[in-house]
């Protein structure tokens, strides 16, 4: 329980750092650490597949993409944020924490333990046989992403 709480607090802290840090590289790494902690939490809560995907894709692959992209940018393009942003996020975060502390404990008591419905089963069965329509949706999302890249990074020649 203590370890679990420590992991959760660490995850929230690193998420806040990811937003608050001005240096993009540090911010990306904070996000990776936060996601790594989430992956560990998934493992400890008997969701090994979710943990594997979280760590390999979010903490690993996406961080690499972020770092690569940041490496390609030039320094000196400072973006000025309005002062509103500087205090709005901490304010919202504190309000959220207060509401969380007041409400969540009683709410969590009311959520019944995960009911086992027809959709439980071996991971592969669920993914390929139980949620096949989602796979069609996944294909569509990937298509949309690929076409978006093709369209947004197209060369604009005058005659076309």
């Amino acid at each position, binding site marked *: 329980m203590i370890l679990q709480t420590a992991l959760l607090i660490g995850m929230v802290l690193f998420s806040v750092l990811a937003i608050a840090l001005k240096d993009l590289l540090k911010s990306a790494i904070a996000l990776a650490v936060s996601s790594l902690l989430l992956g560990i939490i998934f493992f400890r809560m008997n969701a090994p597949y979710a943990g594997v995907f979280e760590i390999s894709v979010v903490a690993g692959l996406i961080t690499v993409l972020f770092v690569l992209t940041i490496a390609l940018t030039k320094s000196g393009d400072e973006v000025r944020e309005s002062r509103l942003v500087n205090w709005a996020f901490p304010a919202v975060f504190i309000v959220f924490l207060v509401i969380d502390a007041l409400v969540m404990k009683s709410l969590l008591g009311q*959520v019944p333990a*995960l009911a086992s419905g027809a959709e439980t089963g071996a991971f592969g069965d669920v993914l390929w*046989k139980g949620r096949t*329509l989602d796979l069609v949706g996944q294909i569509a999302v990937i298509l949309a992403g690929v*076409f978006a890249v*093709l369209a947004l990074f197209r060369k604009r*020649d005058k005659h076309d």
Partner: protein
Amino acid sequence: MIILFVVLPLIVAGVLPLVGKVSRRVLPDLLANTTLLFLLVYAAVAGRALIAGGPILQQMPWLGETVNIRLALDGFSLFMLMAVSLVGLAASLFAIDYMEHYGAKANFYALYLVMIAGMNGLVLASDLFGVYIFLEVAAVASYALVAFGLGHDELEAAFKYLMLSVAASAFIVAAIAIIFGMTGSLDFAAVAAALKELNAGPVLGIATAFFLLGFGLKAALVPFHAWLPDAHPSAPAPISAVLSGLLIKVSGVYAMTRIFLNVFGLTPALSTVLLWLGAVSMVVAALLALGQKDMKRMLAYSSISQVGYVVLGIGIGTPLGIAGGLFHLFNHALAKGLLFLTSGSVQQATGTRDMDEMGGLAKRMPVTAATNLIGALSIAGVPPLNGFWSKLLIIVALVQAGHPVFAVIAVLVSVLTLWYYLLMQRKAFFGQLNEKWAAVKEAPFWMTASTVLLALLCLGVGILFASTVSTWIQPAADVLADGIHAVTGSWGF
């Protein structure tokens, strides 16, 4: 084969970039428009026969094995499919001429068809996660389409749209997770049955609030509307037409209505919240529209206001109110699609969206001016156009259900709507011809043809409103008025 509505546009989208290598314009134009025409004819001709014996549910085999592709088609989804196919086809016909100067037409159509597939999938989905995933399909395609012009404004608008839309998706996923935690299922029918037994007041309240936030953002109801007046005007005209005419209604209003009415069941408290959200959106957005100089921005604010009418109608919860709301959804899709297309014609001819710079364009673009007038009067609710009848139904339903104050607000906002649309018509099309536009010509064939098609539909639906309501709207309203019985009774596999 109702899966065709999802799979056919996806397959065509997949081959379009390859086809684009062979033929840059003709083949992509032909392929995309034929696909949409086929879907429209299929929905119109086969749809009614398919659901004649009640809702149909299909479980597809995949490579010879039975897998869980479940799709459900009932009166409500068929009605939405019709709306998507109709406006989708009109906008895509318009794109034949309009998208010429953007380049990369094959890619444009590919993204467009993926967006249509996403909307169709959402409408046919029979479980909560299916709704989410197809909502994302349509959304991802639409981000790219908003930014398609690649200008500074377009990219900024697309980014803002992306950010707020992601927040909406996060709330929707959170609500779905709560529901799954409570009921152990995602299927509409199973969730509705389980929630009825569970009696989980406060937790269900949180899920409802999250859904309201998420779908409210997607439907751009006030106070969640900040992204829409940037995103919709920045997109190319056919995309503006589809975003305002269809996407906010499918991923906002349809999803919200389906879940609240058919899965959760409409409680009096929820009904009150919807009535207020609708009324506030109507009033605030109409006032904001009044002060706009940018033609497309005025139309965008008007969309928020009109979606307010739809939510107000559905929020009443009576059969007549729901029918009025859905009828207005359909009419607004036609008329707002039409207006965004005509504004696109004007923008292409003059190079500006600022109404103060226009003036007298009716002399140079008579067809565009006439179709624009029909669309404007339809949305403002002038008889005998279609918008009049749907607003009348909503107002009568409000009075019947004992909400006279909301009824008065609806009438007053209608007057306001007429005011700003006449302002637009006068500034842009009537009066002295601004000398700058002496050389302006009427829009090319396909652009004019698609606006004339939509204008005729506005007129036709207005004149034949009784048969339109009984053929298309009533079966859809019946499903919603049936509440959770609609899914628990006949949606079992």
